[in-house]
């Protein structure tokens, strides 16, 4: 399985400048631009009133940004996260964030029908869960609300710094 291929194939936009974005500040700028779309997707996948804490209450978009900024994060996936959000907006003609819940559901289920969209949604799901269920030191899972919801807690000792920075 070629990762790059499955990340890129199927995107209408193909390789956009994000893939080449090298500057940290450049990535930050682009992320900020797409953050409303990413938040809207995360909030749709993890809504209020669920048995587990909502995306809105758990700071997951900021988590997404911070975890992708760490040097250990895969640079291809980093680009893919932004590409996929851009692609979604492209498909929905820039309307996604202003849609009703029902419209969002329809749009995301349609996106899921494509291999590319399915991979992207699956990735956003994974990254959001990484926030919800990782140690609160990473900025999400606030007051262990994620762990409490499923009565499962991280082991001891807990980390005192992020990413084993000793």
């Amino acid at each position: 399985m070629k990762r790059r291929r499955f990340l890129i194939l199927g995107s209408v936009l193909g390789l956009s400048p994000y893939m080449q974005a090298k500057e940290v500040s450049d990535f930050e700028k682009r992320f900020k631009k797409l953050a409303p779309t990413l938040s809207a997707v995360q909030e749709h996948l993890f809504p209020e009133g669920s048995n587990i804490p909502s995306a809105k209450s758990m700071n997951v978009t900021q988590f997404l940004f911070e975890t992708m900024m760490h040097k250990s994060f895969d640079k291809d996936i980093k680009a893919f996260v932004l590409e996929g959000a851009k692609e979604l907006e492209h498909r929905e003609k820039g309307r996604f964030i202003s849609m009703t819940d029902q419209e969002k559901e329809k749009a995301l289920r349609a996106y899921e029908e494509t291999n590319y969209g399915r991979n992207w949604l699956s990735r956003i799901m994974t990254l959001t869960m990484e926030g919800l269920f990782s140690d609160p030191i990473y900025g999400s899972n606030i007051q262990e609300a994620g762990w409490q919801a499923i009565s499962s807690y991280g082991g001891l000792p807990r980390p005192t710094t992020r990413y084993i920075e000793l």
Partner: protein
Amino acid sequence: MSVYDVVIVGSGASGGAVAYTLCQAGYKVAVLEKGRLIKREEFSKDELAYCRRDLVTPNLFDEYHTIEEKVDGEWITTPTYESGWSFWNGNIVGGSSNLMSGMLHRMHPDDFRLKSKYGEIEGANVVDWPISYEELEPYYTLTEELVGISGRVDKHPFEPPRSTVDFTQPPTKENAVVKLFDKSCQSLGITPLVTPRAVLSKDKPGRDACYYSNFCGSYGCSSGAKGSSREALLKPALATGNLTLLSNTYVKYLHTDKKDEVSHAVVVDTVTGKEKKIKGKIFVVAAQAHESARLLLNSANAYHPEGLGNSSGELGKNLIFSGGGSGQGELHKDSLKHIKFKELMTTGLFVNRSILDWYFIDHWWDGRFKGGSVEFMFEHQNIISRARKNGYEDGKLVWGKDLGERLVSRFTEQKSIRFEVFNDWLPNDNCFVSLDPVHKDKFGMPVGKLRVEGHPQDVKVGNYIAKKCEKVLEEMGAKNIYSAISSAPPQNLVAGGCRFGNDPKTSVLNKYCRSHDVKNLFVADASFMPTGGSVAYTWTIYANAFRVADHIVEALKKRA
């Protein structure tokens, strides 16, 4: 520049065992480790850091392998930075022994003479070992005591004989699920055995007993209970004052001034990028099987054009992994038998059960062949990865409130029990490591190219055993049982590539794991194994490295 008595490349199980023995005997030893040091008090159970990012293994864009697999009849090579399929296993001081689950077994005496016992298998390069179980037994016992393996001796026809009556450490504490497991096995006529585990159940000098953190495999141990090379061997070796531990030190190649002698290792300080030489009288390569072969191949020079110690042409050949796979079933709150759900949900305690009944098969209908071993355990307790498994239904992603309900139910109303099958990965001509002709790592050295095809027999045996294990889970009342036996190599169970043997024409190492060609060069890790047995390698790696170390001590005495 100082000249060490012994220079060891790699600080994992085998490097640690050699360092320990040599330092205790009074020799000056340098251990070169590519990774950094993480001390006991610095480890934590941080799932994001240890299990979801490459923080204890190299970033695949910096250091990687290329993997060759047959697709539609053609060999296709994929770099691991493309696939994300890392073949690194813990590049920190102590190596992957820091991160193991520690479910260990000795190999059986017949594993040392597989060819004599079962004959040729077409398409497989099976040979007998040049040593017998009897020669390794004292070192299995030494490992048990020194590294600290807890367990209990139960009589079983396929349990290897032992020179001591019982383990010095009783088994670690067990979850009540073992009552259900044992009962189910008994009603099927299967003998459940307590798994020997490299985790202390009682304090040992300098190390505290297990505190049942619930997150053992994939994590460093915070009490020192786990028998890692770092805790059990490197720390006492450092205490002798004879060990120089050089972490963040990447070895590019070994240099020979003369045909039959290594003079120094050329290394890079991974922090400063500075290159330097480390001189020694004896060199021991212990970098994990595929990397040890790669280092020797990368050490080719005018005397050794095909790689250091490769006059046989066997260097890198007959790489082996472990055959088998795993299976799982769910124990549900509403249908649980014999034990209370609350007991089942108690966290941290071990399952500690294995089955050896199918290690050798001799059946009127099924035939006579070498089988394998099985370990039973709970599904890994990692929260993110367990949560992530609930993401699909009928091929569609589950999200929204449905997802919330599924997660809460999965985490609070059931617990998954799992088995892992270990059977021989038959050595064959299409499983080996060579140097990639194109790809280089960030230090400018050619990366290892791994061709990883298994033998069809491995999958057959794996499936045979998995079906029997599914019956055990059924008898336990588990739901949604499945198993997956695969011919894909488990990258954490790797051996071979530098076969030992008596004939220099067909093997890389002699029976003491010394190079046939280069008299001061040893390979101490699992590379030496011509066949792998049907158990995890770690106990055998420790034991053999202690044996090799004793031989090096003798060799150094003679030199003096």
